[in-house]
């Protein structure tokens, strides 16, 4: 496996669009060609070689030194692996359709928004709109999985259509806002207004909550599906440990009935 490493030469002077640094787009290029690629910096452009020291060989894996001013890291990733040592800026992994993006630090706004496939792992915290919908898009995430070890901001999984989001820590307000389908697992505590406007899909967490009035309490149930899901998680890498073991008896709320929805909130005991 060939690894291509990008090490920052110094502090960034503005926000960088790092979306061109995808393994499958760089694999056929020589190091000198990659160093000459333009990256958007604010309103202008800067060459990759001016910002980063490059080492290794272009191939399946890109290693990137992280910075919270690096936006669009892994956006549009279709295959291969990107490992980021440190944090990333906004919209990391947006529109991913395959491959794996591992962020060892925190992620900014709209990480994994409109994701279609692949795997996004954030070992730190994630900002608002995690796995949400990009502006103008009717659906949010339509496939793949997002695994966040820390907490996340508001509106995680907004308009989600398919796929899995697992958050190890707490979520902000309006998680799964207008969710259409898919699964959102919360290892910590869910924030306010969870599932507002959801039409279908599953939100799974631990402990009782006081949901919005649009949710009908269907009482305690023992669902074999939860064991199937937990078995599925056991086969994946980097699942937040707090998202495991969400099995056994669970209280089920059905809603959001104010929107004709029949999604579910499942609160494991």
């Amino acid at each position, binding site marked *: 496996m060939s690894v291509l490493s990008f090490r920052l030469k110094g502090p960034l002077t503005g926000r960088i669009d790092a979306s061109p640094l995808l393994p499958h787009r760089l694999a056929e290029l020589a190091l000198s060609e990659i160093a000459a690629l333009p990256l958007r910096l604010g309103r202008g452009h800067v060459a990759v070689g001016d910002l980063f020291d490059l080492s290794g060989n272009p191939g399946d894996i890109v290693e990137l030194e992280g910075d919270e001013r690096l936006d669009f890291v892994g956006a549009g990733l279709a295959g291969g692996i990107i490992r980021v040592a440190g944090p990333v800026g906004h919209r990391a992994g947006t529109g991913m359709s395959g491959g794996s993006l591992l962020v060892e630090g925190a992620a900014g706004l709209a990480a994994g928004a409109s994701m279609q496939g692949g795997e996004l792992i954030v070992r730190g915290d994630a900002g608002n709109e995690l796995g949400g919908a990009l502006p103008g898009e009717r659906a949010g995430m339509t496939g793949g999985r997002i695994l966040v070890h820390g907490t996340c901001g508001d509106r995680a999984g907004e308009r989600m259509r*398919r796929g*899995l989001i697992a958050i190890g820590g707490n979520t902000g307000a309006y998680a799964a806002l207008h969710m259409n389908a898919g*699964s959102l697992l919360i290892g910590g505590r869910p924030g306010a207004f969870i599932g507002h406007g959801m039409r*279908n899909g*599953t939100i799974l967490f631990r402990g009782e909550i006081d949901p919005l009035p649009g949710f009908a309490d269907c009482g305690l*149930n*023992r*669902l*074999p*599906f939860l*064991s*199937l*899901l*937990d*078995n*599925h998680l056991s*086969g994946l890498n980097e699942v937040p440990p707090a998202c495991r073991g969400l099995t056994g008896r669970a209280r089920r709320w059905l809603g959001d009935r104010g929107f004709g929805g*029949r999604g*579910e909130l499942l609160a494991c005991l």
Partner: protein
Amino acid sequence: MLLNGIHIENTYAEAFDMKATRLIVTADTPAWARHAGMAATGFATSVIACGCEAGIERELAPEETPDGRPGVALLFFATGRSVLGKQVETRVGQCILTCPGTACFSGVPRGVKEDLIPLGRKLRYFGDGQQMSKLLCGRRYWRIPVMDGEFLCEESSWSVPAVGGGNLLILADARTAALEAAEAAADAMRAVPNVVLPFPGGVVRSGSKIGAKYKGMPASTNDAYCPTLRGLPRSRLPAEVESVLEIVIDGLTAADVAAATTAGLKCLIERGRGSGIWGVTAGNYGGKLGRHHFHLYELLP
């Protein structure tokens, strides 16, 4: 050939290409998984009139099943994919969906669209709009509300090529000796993976030949092996044989059927002439109907 006093006839079992699928049925306890498995594979001894041949392949420990509960693996065999699909759909709908606490999964690798066997794909409509689906690792599962909770069912299974109709005929001095030998051989053969013995207890007493003197009868009694007809010229039984029992084997591959045949032969030969077994032979139709020939001499242990 005489082995341990038992006559092994130099002949072969003739078996046919079939289509098969495996289902994994789980429940809260092994007993309820067995209930569901027994019902779903009931009345499935022969494709002649049952539509399919089926059986419980083996019991599964909780760590072997998708939802971590005890279960059973079921194998279904039929002459083609469409009739197999219809049989499986009806049997899952009437025998597994109805059984308390069960869930149903495909037990074969994901196949192509042409091999699809619908499970939850059609049964989900029982949920009357309250059903939910989940897509995990590219496989879709349906959750159908039922009176004891939820019926969890994978959307579809797939048919795989299979071999049906492998067989052994046990010739014995008396009915009790034949039955004891057949029970022991069936137990040994069931231990082979990927096979089922579709008849009651794995044993069949009404072996058949193709055709009959009556119109409309596709098969009739195998009179050459009926002891009450030993005096007739076409009888194949020596005077001392008073009872004949057959074990029919369906397997996912010819190698599986061969392994089960060897296991059966080994068990019978070890029991020896002293147990009342006179000989072992196999049924065939002259080799023209089935592609697979299992020669007893080649499969001796």
